[in-house]
């Protein structure tokens, strides 16, 4: 078989191509959020991913609905509508029996096949079924529309030509999205650079509720604390970031874990609250917060930021002058690190 005929044969598998594309779009839609880039365009690109996934479903349904079924499936295809209806009714009955099935699944059953069947049935959750039904309803509504169009304007050549053009345009869009997904995912997945912290503060957080209580799609506007104080928009990830919609006030200090990217396109691994700057704010408001100050000093010691330690020890001694042991311990640590002047200054402040 020549290469040309092989390509022709693969391209003739219209339904298979559409299904694979739908799977790829769904996959990249899920992983692209995790490999996010800073910038408002990326927020739009992730949002476009949702729309493209819906489009890929419509392409699959359109290709199945308009395809000529293989000979083996033709007897079944003739009764497709009643079979679909019966499948829906069966799923509805299953959903009503779910509490009973889940009860049976909890009992150790002797027959392995029966046990597996009951296990699968019990694993069907109401939420999962909602998603399946929502997608199925969208698909069936599309089938009805296609059939009606086919029966009415479908006889016109121009309309048929437009239909084919739209199908190809949709496939081209999906392929482009998948290619962009491969590039961005490789940029992040193959990246071996260490995370570099970037200090910023939150300007605003916004979100859109997803249907069927599937969660939120959220993003934040951030301002860099380092010059030139750029303002950027960033997709937020639930479970990975410390900040999120409705739970982050403007002005929150944050740290972005930036990665250089395999192809040199920087991406953001995580957004976390900047605890050090938060501790500094706390101490500015409550200088007697010894617990917060001790934690901050411990972090400065860990990061060997010796020069910043002395002012904190002095502030601590102003609030708690009797805390000699702690101050002397820090003075010894500073001396060992080669900061004798700071150590001497602290020792002088300690009451004898």
């Amino acid at each position, binding site marked *: 078989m020549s290469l040309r005929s092989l390509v022709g044969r693969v391209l003739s598998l219209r339904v298979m191509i559409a299904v694979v594309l739908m799977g790829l779009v769904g996959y990249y839609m899920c992983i692209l959020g995790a490999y996010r880039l800073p910038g408002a365009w990326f927020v739009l690109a992730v949002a476009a991913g949702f729309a493209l996934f819906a489009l890929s479903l419509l392409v699959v349904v359109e290709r199945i609905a308009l395809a000529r079924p293989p000979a083996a499936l033709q007897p079944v295809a003739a009764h497709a509508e009643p079979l679909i209806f019966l499948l829906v009714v069966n799923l509805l009955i299953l*959903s009503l029996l779910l509490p009973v099935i889940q009860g049976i699944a909890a009992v150790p059953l002797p027959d392995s096949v029966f046990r597996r069947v009951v296990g699968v049935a019990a694993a069907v959750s109401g939420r999962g079924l909602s998603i399946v039904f929502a997608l199925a309803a969208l698909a*069936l509504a599309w089938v009805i529309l296609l059939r009606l169009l086919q*029966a009415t304007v479908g006889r016109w050549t121009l309309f048929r030509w437009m239909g084919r053009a739209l199908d190809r345009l949709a496939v081209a869009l999906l392929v482009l999205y998948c290619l962009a997904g491969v590039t961005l995912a490789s940029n992040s997945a193959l990246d071996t650079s260490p995370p570099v912290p970037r200090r910023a503060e939150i300007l605003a957080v916004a979100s859109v509720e997803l249907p069927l209580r599937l969660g939120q799609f959220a993003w934040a506007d951030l301002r860099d604390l380092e010059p030139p104080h750029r303002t950027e928009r960033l997709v937020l990830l639930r479970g990975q970031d410390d900040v999120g919609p409705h739970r982050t*006030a403007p002005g929150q200090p944050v740290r972005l874990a930036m990665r250089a990217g395999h192809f040199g396109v920087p991406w953001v691994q995580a957004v976390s609250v900047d605890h050090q700057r938060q501790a500094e*704010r*706390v101490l500015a*408001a409550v200088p007697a917060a*010894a617990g917060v100050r001790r934690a901050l000093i411990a972090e400065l010691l860990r990061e060997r930021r010796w020069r910043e330690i002395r002012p904190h020890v002095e502030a601590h001694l102003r609030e*708690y002058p009797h805390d000699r042991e702690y101050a002397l311990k820090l003075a010894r640590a500073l001396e060992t690190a080669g900061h004798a002047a700071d150590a001497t200054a602290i020792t002088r402040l300690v009451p004898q």
Partner: protein
Amino acid sequence: MFRRLSVLALAIILMALWIVAYQRASLMDSTFLRLSGPGVRGLTLYLSGRYAEAARAYRAGLGRWGLDYNDDPWGADAMAGGELAVAERRARTTLTLVPAAFEPRLTLSEIALDQRRFPAALELVGELLARDPDHVDALLLSAIARARLGHDGAAITAINRALRHGHPGRRRTLVYRALELAGELAPPEGPARSLCLLAHLHRYLRIHDDIHGDIAIAYARRAIAAGDRPADAYLTLGIVLNRRGRALEALQAFQQAVAIDRQHAEAYRWASQAARDLKEPVLQYQMARAALEAAPTDRFYLAPVERVVMNWFGDARTTAALMQRAVDADPANARAHENLARAARALGQPDRAAAHEGRAAELRRARSPL
């Protein structure tokens, strides 16, 4: 072809109906989904918004198990099933055997409520609350009795005090009593009265069905607009928003509540929680501190101060001042003495620390049964 397509349209309708039903049912717990004749009737009435009738229908389906005294020594199940005479006999028998028992007294109070003897019901739970001011079931029953007597303010205070413990009470009938009261205060065919109380009742019902969160928010907003206990209305608004993860809006509501009532300790406590969710430690500290300052005799507000001011911030100076105020207002507060001792030690005042440690030990010994 149209016949075949109508089959598909029917499948779409079935799936859409299932999604709507599932989305609604997934907000409820089993309190409102009961597999019995009265339960189904109750659910139908409940979903149509006829809460008072729904509550009566649900209650008709409770306690039909024919339990004997050994299974129901407090008479709670007999009372739930409407067998008031049996319930009273069982409760009184148990009270004869254990005169200090709480549960039979609660049963007698519920019987008094069912017989519309509200002052008697209030008196019975009043005895219990004198012994344990934070007994959730007693507080909720007292709220129902007070609301029935038209004392909205006292009912709201009791609901707030009960709900601050984070659980809805143990008695099965409580939720239906609240539902019935909410239905009577806002009948489907007439105007609603006691808007702020309604907001609180729906906040309580939200524990069992999240849809009541929306109703609580709506009543709270109406109460604020009408000037019906706006500080409490803002508190309820904030709590529902906070439970839905909207901490920023919740904090604004709590701040409105304390702007109206500077002594609203519960609003301060919730503001502290919202600030924690927002990762605003300074505000969390200020609000936890303000809660205890607003209610120095209420031991419930010691815990947030211990957690934030004392353990996390390590602010011994403020802890000492707050605990000194608490022991001045309530010298029998052993925990405040212990905290004051700890703070004094951190401040380098060993004599003061020893004195309060000694006082705390004395108080604990006096309270110990051995």
